């Protein structure tokens, strides 16, 4: 068993855990933004910063992102300090200046005592805080359809060469690899990624998708691209993915019933 010091308390941890995981296991709160337990750490928002030091570091310390920093024996970690509050507040202030109108950042600002940003608001703000969750979820699903394009303040997420909006300038390629699964829109904390489910099917990233219906009841299942992708990715047969959960359940009931009947008659 490994142990380290967390806010003055000795805590145990398992090899491979991050500071964030250890803190959460010990009910020590650390604010996070770009972290998602199911996805690879990103380290982009820097809200989860904490201070680490070691006895032998002789007073030297460093600020690290808890979502990435591996827990280690005899580490001394502080999750709260004057300096950390200042830093986190500045980070939130910067995000609020980036997205001054976005409900999510406004609420975040309020949590950190900022009614509005003390900095210059972005000229033509959109709702994206560049947390990178959408890009990572898309990669996790295996589609790799979106990525960050450009650098610095000009960075944007979206399918290659496309801005994240329906009003795609003419001439830009549609989102090639997108399977229309909506995971990106689902995970986006600010609602920046727009999509639409309508009678024709589904639209996201400027691309339209048909929606496949359950072979027995007609309930919408997903896009054909999505189901093909699921099948290809899982190695399961495509017809694993043709019925909705309710109809599969009914099928299961029927199969059970058949068997019981069979046993009863024999």
């Amino acid at each position, binding site marked *: 068993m490994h142990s380290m010091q967390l806010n003055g308390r000795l805590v145990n941890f398992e090899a491979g855990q991050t500071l964030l995981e250890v803190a959460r296991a010990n009910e020590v709160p650390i604010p996070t933004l770009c972290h998602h337990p199911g996805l690879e750490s990103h*380290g982009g928002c820097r809200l989860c910063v904490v201070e680490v030091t070691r006895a032998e570091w002789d007073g030297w310390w460093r*600020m690290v992102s808890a979502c990435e920093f591996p827990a280690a024996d005899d580490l001394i970690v502080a999750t709260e300090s004057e300096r950390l509050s*200042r830093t986190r507040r500045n980070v939130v202030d910067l*995000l609020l200046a980036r997205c001054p109108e976005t409900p999510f950042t406004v609420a975040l600002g309020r949590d950190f005592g900022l009614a509005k940003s003390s900095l210059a608001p972005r000229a033509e703000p959109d709702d994206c805080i*560049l947390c990178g969750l959408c890009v990572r979820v898309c990669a996790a699903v295996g589609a790799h359809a979106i990525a960050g394009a450009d650098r610095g303040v000009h*960075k944007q997420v979206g399918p290659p060469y496309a801005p994240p909006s329906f009003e795609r300038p003419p001439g830009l390629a549609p989102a090639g690899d997108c399977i229309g699964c909506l995971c990106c829109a689902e995970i986006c904390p600010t609602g920046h990624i727009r999509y639409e489910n309508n009678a024709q099917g589904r639209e996201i990233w400027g691309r339209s998708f048909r929606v496949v219906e359950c072979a027995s009841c007609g309930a919408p299942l997903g896009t054909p691209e999505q189901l093909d992708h699921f099948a290809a990715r899982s190695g399961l047969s495509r017809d694993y993915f043709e019925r909705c959960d309710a109809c599969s359940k009914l099928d299961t009931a029927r199969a059970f019933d058949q068997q019981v009947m069979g046993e009863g008659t024999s």
Partner: protein
Amino acid sequence: MLIESVAALRARQAELSELWAGLERRVLVCAGTGCVAGGALEVHAALTQATEESALDVSLELSSCADRDGPGGTLLVESGCHGFCELGPLVHILPDDILYTRVRPKDAAAIVEKTLGAGEVIDRLLYKDPVSKEPRQGHGEMGFYAHQKRVVLARCGEVSPASLDSYLATGGFCALATALDTLTPEEVLREVEQSGLRGRGGGGFSTGRKWRSALRAREARPDSRLHVICNGDEGDPGAFMDRSIMEGDPFAVLEGMALGAFALGSTRGYIYVRHEYPLAVRRLERAIAVLRDAGLLGERILGCDFSFDLELTRGGGAFVCGESSALMRSIEGKPGEPRAKYTHSTDRGLFDEPTVLNNVETWALVPYIVDHGAAHFAAIGTERSPGTKAFSLVGKVNNTGLVEVPMGTTLRRIIFEIGGGIQKGRAFKAVQTGGPSGGCLPAEKLDLPVDFDTLTAAGSMMGSGGMIVMDERTCMVDVAKYFIDFLMGESCGKCVPCREGLGQLSSLLAQVTRGEGSESLLSKVESLAETMELASLCALGRSAPNPVLSTLAYFRDEYLQHIEKQRCPAGVCKALVTYRITEACTGCEACRKACPVGAITGEKKVLHVIDDALCTRCGACEAVCAFDAVLVE
């Protein structure tokens, strides 16, 4: 030509050194990027033709010197950068030490006839001292060269970078030969450790320690491979040390990497070169091919039990790709974004395997260290920063170019003796070191002996060795804004403090240049700077506030003048200056004609007047006025 054994290599080295020593003369036409742009290749062609037409014994390759009438004669080659790019194309003639500057193809006949034929010096092609205007014959008479100590640049400008023969003739591959037949890998590693070599790419991290930890990491994971990488990204604006080495002495970089691979048991190396460096890419690719043919790269090098090969990757051109974790991602074919380095890349670097990444200059120093011994190297420079350092000296100095000095040389010596002082006799104001995220040091710091630690302590850094000199007409707020804007464009955009912080710093500094804001603006700047330094993901963001913090530390008053008095003392910030014509005006009309917006009125021989409402502060009038009558205030 395949060299089959260490003994064969040694024999070849001896033979070539003898040829080299027997040369009567060497004519070196600089074929660095700067001189090539100025027409150096045409100069070389013209010289070749002129020598062919003459009766002189001139060869274009070292090996063909022997075919002629016995050894001796003249070797005419294109060389790497001589460092004094400003005056190119350069032709250097040795051993006479005659340096011809701004040579044009039409000068070739005269050079061949007079200098090579009759031993005369052509005065009009010589360098003129900026102060005394006296001609200077060669390096020995020029402060620019006389105060340098060339170790890593020793061959740049002395040999043909394309010629393995010249490399071998000048001691090349002696170190690898020694390593292969007399040293163990551990001994090579210990040599590097004991030399005290620190990485030349920016951080000044101990190279020996880096190698040792990678080796330990690999021993702990016996199934893993160890990779060696050369960082030739060099994204700093105005820096060209690494480029000059890659272009001028590519074999040294490759030999250094082979030595590292030998010490570390690596079989695979990568060189990452910025794609804006096509000449460096070509020279390195060629050098790699030549070494493969010679059996100095590939399977069983020199017939020994050591195999090592190299791959060249072209960088995507983003500044941040020079950062180690971004660079490794980029080699892996992923987006060049940095990752938190909470696990060292010596442990998990390229492909998650132990990796040693070093800078071009660092690698190129390794053969020198193995060859001359750790003690010899450690005796150069200062105790904690041994060796020499190459700098690219640019800005408002008389002599700009590539210089190499022992660590511990003072800024004053570099700027005033090597650099020849400030242009147009103006006053020195500051020197910016360390690349875009370095700091600006004022005149009080001129006597600072330059090494890794002194520069950091003074609020700047060594970086990769950029040095930009500024004179009294430079506005430090404007300078800070320039670098912040550069970094803003180069931030990868992954983390909030760097991406958003640089944008905000830029707009805050813009306010200062417009004379807006108050002292509280400066505390906002300082608070943001602290957050960026502490919380940014990679070193780009963490060091990005340096240009502001160092100028605030040394030139705070200049900021305050902007904010409180709406004055730009250097007369740079357009919103804060006015252009006025003084009594010195002779009414020559030059400024009136030069003004693009027609803001100047005046008759011939009558004092001219600038209409401030129309004036766009473009500075055209000031530039053309021969009587210094245009005043900027």
